[in-house]
């Protein structure tokens, strides 16, 4: 009789079992959310879910509160409602369309959709790990991949976000699909998915830079970035990728504009270019925005040029764009490095954004299961990174509670903790970057 194989990898349940457990967990939480919301004034469901659901209702019931789609090609023969009638609905109208079954099927349909996307994301992580990331590491890859996928599927941040009704899971699915196709070498599919992802939320546009860089470097025979690299960066294949991606983005945007008009353009995109989030959030810029919020008719034109520069949104925009795009060029050297490049790009985008809430973190923690096998870090470094990443947030949250609910005058202290958040998270990123080892495959 053969001895039973030993080792931790043989004690890991199968990926199918993990999916079933994850699905059951999410169904239970969604059912609990319905009971909780019916019996408590403090709701389990995120306020955003009510915003999405209301927007879906407005689409289905035009002329309710005078709402009607105002696009140039809105059908004259039957009225379609305008999701932007709902205040604070600042998303693509396709999200409200996806949630139409909330009205005619069940109010929790959207939560089940987001939970299903969570499971798809876990499956995509698994499918990316086995052929692309884990072949270079120790066997057996399926147990290792299951364990890594579990860090996403059983992550409390992930399953509470989706079961509370936040739509981030859909964006994660689109981004992971884009990455999956990129790693499979299917550039056209990658370009189309990137266009769809950027339509959904604008920031995935930054991934285009690393994709194009990887495409260019695939064709470069000599070392480094020289004239040859630049030539291929603007060459036929890179151009085709960019045009296909941009074309997808434009077609989707044009279709939505045709139906819903300027309100779509403004709420989904233009609003975010000039938003002034003055209320406290992790970014230390909140306090600057609050103190310099223009009183009706007032300007800062009488300040010196240096003071105007210090207050300028470019002090955060330039580092943000420079890093989120520049790291894509610098680190997207091969297709196999794309998970790492996208992680760094997203991390820097979130870190230097003038507003930051907890939900933004999922945009980059999504990539951690794909990075982990390539990070050569000691347990001590891992623990320090975790402690600082979480600790700086906890430090901020403790002060924010005092401001929000106790009414303590802690604006300055909260701002200082925002600076600590920036410094701490920058350090964590530096450690992770230093620990990255490239894969063996191109």
């Amino acid at each position: 009789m053969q001895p039973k194989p030993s080792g931790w990898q043989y004690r890991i349940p199968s990926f199918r079992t993990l999916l079933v457990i994850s699905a059951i967990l999410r169904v239970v939480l969604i059912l609990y959310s319905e009971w909780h919301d019916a019996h408590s004034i403090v709701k389990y469901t995120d306020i955003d879910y009510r915003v999405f659901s209301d927007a879906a209702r407005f689409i289905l019931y035009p002329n309710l509160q005078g709402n009607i789609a105002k696009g140039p090609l809105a059908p004259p023969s039957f009225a379609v409602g305008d999701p932007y009638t709902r205040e604070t609905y600042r998303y693509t109208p396709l999200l409200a369309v996806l949630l139409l079954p909330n009205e005619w099927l069940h109010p929790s349909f959207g939560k089940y959709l987001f939970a299903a996307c969570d499971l798809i994301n876990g499956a995509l992580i698994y499918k990316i790990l086995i052929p692309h990331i884990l072949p270079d590491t120790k066997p057996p890859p399926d147990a290792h991949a299951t364990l890594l996928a579990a860090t996403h599927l059983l992550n409390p941040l992930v399953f509470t976000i989706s079961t509370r009704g936040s739509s981030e899971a859909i964006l994660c699915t689109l981004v992971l699909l884009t990455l999956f196709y990129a790693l499979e070498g299917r550039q056209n599919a990658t370009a189309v998915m990137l266009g769809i992802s950027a339509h959904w939320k604008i920031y995935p546009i930054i991934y285009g830079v690393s994709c194009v860089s990887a495409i260019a470097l695939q064709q470069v025979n000599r070392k480094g970035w020289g004239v040859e690299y630049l030539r291929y960066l603007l060459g036929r294949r890179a151009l085709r990728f960019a045009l296909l991606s941009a074309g997808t983005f434009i077609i989707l945007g044009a279709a939505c504009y045709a139906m819903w008009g300027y309100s779509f353009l403004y709420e989904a995109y233009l609003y975010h270019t000039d938003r002034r989030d003055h209320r406290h959030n992790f970014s230390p810029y909140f306090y600057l925005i609050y103190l310099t919020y223009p009183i009706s008719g007032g300007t800062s034109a009488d300040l010196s040029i240096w003071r105007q520069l210090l207050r300028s949104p470019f002090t955060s925009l330039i580092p943000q764009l420079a890093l989120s795009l520049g790291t894509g060029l610098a680190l997207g050297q091969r297709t196999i490095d794309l998970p790492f490049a996208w992680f760094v790009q997203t991390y820097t985008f979130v870190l230097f954004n003038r507003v930051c809430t907890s939900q933004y973190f999922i945009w980059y923690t999504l990539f951690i299961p794909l990075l982990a096998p390539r990070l050569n870090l000691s347990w001590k470094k891992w623990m320090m990174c975790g402690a600082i990443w979480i600790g700086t947030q906890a430090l901020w949250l403790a002060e924010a509670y005092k401001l929000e609910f106790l009414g303590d005058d802690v604006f300055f202290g909260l701002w200082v903790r925002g600076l600590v958040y920036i410094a701490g998270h920058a350090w964590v990123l530096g450690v992770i970057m230093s620990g990255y080892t490239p894969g063996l495959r191109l």
Partner: protein
Amino acid sequence: MQAKGFHTNLSTRISLHARHEYSACDLFILYELPPDVIIDSFELNNHGLQFEFVGNANLELPMAGVGNEAGWVLVAAKPEGEVVLVDVPLHMRYGVPGEGHNPRHIIQLHPPTCFWGCPSSYKSLDSTFSSRSPEFAMLNASTHFKIIEHTTSSPLSLNIPVGNMNHILYIELGTVVVTLFAFVYITLRCWAVSKTLCSAHLKMQ
């Protein structure tokens, strides 16, 4: 009583003496809210309140971004029992920043007006209840009104901290300096890692 913090519940207690005399009437509570105070209509729906709001519905602006226009909330309450309790959740906008040590802003709330809205058969009652309030569709069926005297409401003022303009130079410099340091640190790390990646990939080639 004064509440601190940016969120509170305005609790109104109405004693309904001789409510049987107003059996054909509806019970209303009218709140006049200063521009510092926000109500979230969707939250009030969740609380099961039947209400109407007139005022600035933009929840996202600080005081510096809104005018001086008051908001009005009319709530229809169910007159079940001798005492009726109504809670309305309120949220505060960030106030205009001040100066000095620990600047704060006190928001005074007008006590709400509680009244019966009655049909035309109640001819002995007044035909108005407030000279300043806007018109409400909920009052279309009421032509005569009786203000209820025995009501208490809490809190009647709200005490919130405001930003301190004395900090502005530190905020400007500190934010930019830390952002710049973080930018330089990450750029240097990125440069080092990209060189390592380049060497590693060239070796593979």
